[in-house]
């Protein structure tokens, strides 16, 4: 893992955490990777806004269907898992 990659991941995580914190009406510093989105009070509309923000900010398609949340193999349960999912989508879709 070289330095550039670490910086990239770091920036990605900061941006994702900022999106989640904005939805949870909290400061980003108040979020930890272990927290679940449910515990942050994020409901289905909040989830739709988060996915919208991720697609806009990272220029990716998030293949999420609220009727079948696990279908795309995306784990959006915790702050950390959302960061990992976005990282994977960015790698896959933007090479």
């Amino acid at each position: 893992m070289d330095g550039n990659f670490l910086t990239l991941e770091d920036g990605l995580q900061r941006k994702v955490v900022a999106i989640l914190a904005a939805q949870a009406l909290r400061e980003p510093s108040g979020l930890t990777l272990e927290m679940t989105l449910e515990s942050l009070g994020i409901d289905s509309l909040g989830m739709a806004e988060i996915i919208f923000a991720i697609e806009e900010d990272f220029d990716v398609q998030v293949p999420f269907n609220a009727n079948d949340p696990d279908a795309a193999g995306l784990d959006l349960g915790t702050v950390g898992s959302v960061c990992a999912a976005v990282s994977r989508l960015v790698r896959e879709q933007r090479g």
Partner: protein
Amino acid sequence: MGRRVAITGAGTVNALALDVQGSLAALTAGRVAIGPMDFEEIDRLSVKIGGQIKDWVPEDRFTRQEVTLYDRAVQFAVEAGRQAIAEAGLELSEAEALRAGVVLGTGGGGYNTIDESYRAVHAQGKNRVHPFTIPKLMHNAAAAHLAMRHGLKGPSFTVSTACASSNHAMGLAFQMVRSGATDVMLAGGAESTLCFGGLKAWEGLRVMSPDGCRPFCASRNGMVQGEGAAVFVFEDWDRAVARGVPILAEVAGFAMTSDAGDIVLPDPDGATRAMQGALADADLTPEAIGYINAHGTGTAANDRSEAEAIRRVFDAPPPVSATKSMHGHLLGAAGAVELLSVISALRDGVIPPTAGWREEDPAVLGLDVVPNEARRAQVDAALTNAFAFGGMNACLALKRAG
């Protein structure tokens, strides 16, 4: 017949003012709130005037979440509903909330949301729109948010009959309270179509005035659009009396008819039967009516047809005024905002005028249109008309409280 129905609260935002008191003051002063509009791409429109609400800052009134979820029309409805409930001093127990609901009218629903979304995907080449686009633009959003905010768990729905929407909505609310189906209803309408797409579509019909709304005047040259909302609390009369709250007016009758003729041109027959029906439903004679708030759009077709209909119903017509001359035509919210003028006549004894009037028109058949200056009069009963594209007519009869 059924129960009597009281109006115990009123709320509004429109181009005249952002509350009832300010609106009544403006209406009785004959103040015209129609003027140059301001929104994206207005330079591409041929008609640039309207009754646009200025100084509306959503962020000052709603949370960030609410701003992303509420179309402009919903914002207007939520504020008007808040005012109405506050005036009525409405507090409902859990059981009472099950027998309270909302019925609102809107012609266009979330028109600004539709316009912004289409601009994003068509003009700006974006590939996605905001995820709340559907819950923002749907016609029943305003009624839903009022039910949610005030915990009204009975019947809630939206009526969309173009320019008669809110009269139909208020008429249905009246029927539900009168019949005992519910005890309390929020009723009215909300509209916000003053955006590029909304007005571009109207341009095609060639019915818009470039310089002002002058109903019943020989110089008339079309309608002028407005925006806003008005919401009222309709309540079982005995319940209102038991609570000891002031009653603004009594809703006494309602009728709806169809021309079943032309999709845009009005037929005096449908309007005549609507007024006669409302009188019969209220058990009133034409002689009892002291004021008619006209549909009065300022189009040649409406002026002619409505004047003819009033002549058919009344041997000696009462004063008739068209207040769209001041706040503009609020389409699906028109009847609701115009009910404020009816309340002014019944409760305060002041008939708001037809503003902008310049010269007599033979097509108006000699009606007294209360030109330019409000008039003091004791009005015991009144009618308010709404005649929509589609030939759908809705007339309400109201009585002075007492």
